[in-house]
């Protein structure tokens, strides 16, 4: 089974044997890949009960919980990496979740769909409708994505909160795209952060 492209980037850049907390781990696809491929001690947090059951059934350590409230119980720097993939935009308080990530993990991977991708812009500009795309498939009323964010918005937040970027990857249709004009051309962004 191949990993989603943003997860594959994260999996390729986690050091073997590391301790990882995957927040919003879904059914544990990334955790399983890290465990099996890189001997990583992976733990997960996931809000959906069916996903949690699936992850536990595949032998992973996953706790049902909400990133907005349940990260507070994890000790400082108890993981080498805290991973937040495709979950930031669903948080009630993304900036506080980011703080928790960098408190719990030495480093954090954050991936999110870029709301300033040209296809999103076109949908709003020419269609006058909230965009429904490959990476943002839900309609405005049933989307869990309550805090849409662009790559430039995210960079500004990092600057404001004095968070260092140790790596950044941008994806369009699953393929890498350059950092230049990423805010226009990339559907997805993956950041490696440290405070």
């Amino acid at each position, binding site marked *: 089974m191949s990993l989603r492209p943003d997860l594959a980037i994260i999996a390729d850049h986690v050091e073997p044997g590391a301790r990882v907390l995957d927040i919003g781990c879904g059914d544990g696809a990334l955790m399983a890949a890290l465990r099996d491929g890189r001997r990583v001690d992976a733990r997960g947090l996931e809000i959906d009960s069916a996903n949690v059951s699936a992850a*536990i059934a595949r032998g992973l*350590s996953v*706790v049902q919980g909400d990133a907005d409230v349940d990260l507070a119980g994890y000790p400082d720097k108890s993981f080498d990496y805290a991973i937040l993939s495709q979950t930031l935009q669903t948080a009630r308080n993304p900036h506080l979740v980011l703080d928790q990530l960098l408190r719990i993990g030495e480093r954090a991977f954050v991936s999110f769909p870029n709301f300033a991708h040209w296809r999103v812009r076109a949908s709003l500009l020419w269609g006058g409708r909230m965009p429904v795309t490959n990476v943002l498939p839900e309609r405005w009323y049933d989307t869990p994505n309550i805090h849409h964010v662009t790559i430039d918005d995210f960079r500004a937040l990092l600057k404001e909160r004095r968070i260092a970027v140790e790596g950044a990857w941008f994806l369009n249709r699953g393929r890498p795209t350059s950092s230049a004009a990423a805010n226009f051309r990339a559907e997805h962004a993956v950041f490696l952060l440290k405070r």
Partner: protein
Amino acid sequence: MDQRFGLNAHVTLPGPLVLDSGAMLAPVEIAYETYGTLNADASNAILICHALTGDQHVASPHPRTGKPGWWARMVGAGLPIDPARHFIVCANVLGSCMGSSGPASTNPETGTPYGMAFPVITIRDMVRTQAMLLDHLGVKRLEAVVGGSMGGMQALSWAATYPARVAACVVIAATARHSAQNIAFHEVGRQAVMADPNWRDGDYYDADPPAAGLAVARMAAHITYLSEAGLTAKFGRKLQDRGAKTFGFDADFQVESYLRHQGLSFTDRFDANAYLYITRAMDYFDLAEEHGGMLAHAFRGTSTRFCVVSFDTDWLYPTRESRTIVQALNAAGAPASFVELSSPFGHDAFLLESPELRRIVDGFLRAGA
């Protein structure tokens, strides 16, 4: 055939067992069952801990009621806990009445039943007794300890008391401490027993037992094992075998008739004093208190893997109690899984058909094998 293994097994260990109360118990009787075969390096043992009124017959018919084992849905061929792969041990808890030492056992000092002279015991005392049994069986380290409700409390206590002896711990529909509400319901039950004139300060073994009091205790407790929605769905306000209310105090409603039946049938299989002692042990349970008030300290440095499961309609040990356990496990850095399953059946859900629970326990146990 080694007499230590198999169904309806029993052992008398010399003890003495030093209890949390400071009292000593000797000898220590343990009634238990084993299923499957202990492998050469004794690494495939799973201890199953039963609930308040449970017993050692986890997957074999109950000797008095003839009903199938209380967890035959989880333990058996092709099931998550499988005698083909595991050596399964289930012991009647200390203080109970199915063959292990309890208030109905003979007091060696008097030659008569202990009654209220039996020492007050704790969940940890039950666990210590099970550890003595495992020593007797040649099991140093458990592949897993598994329990629901009071069995889950024992599983937690096992992980906290003997961390090196437990590779994995499954805690279902349980709590790390009894709440005021939990204690309150138990006290109603105990007072019902004690208010029965047949109770006679616990000295009833050569006369009629306090069956009426015990039945009321069971009725009150049974309500806490169900959910309001479950009761409504099952009974609503339906009348029992009659077309109209009788304007009397018969069991007009089906729910009354059901509860009376639950209460009465319970008295056929359970000792009233044992009910007092075990409910007391549960009320005294507070794992954090045993560790300086910090639950996380109970699991400090542990290498045990944990799987915690709650049910959304369980109001006896609601999900927030499981979350408290999980937060402590996270704080201690323990490998922990937790999920809240959906069921209309309240606390009892852990004993009922649940493919999801089976899938979770199976996956969790296999991950450590």
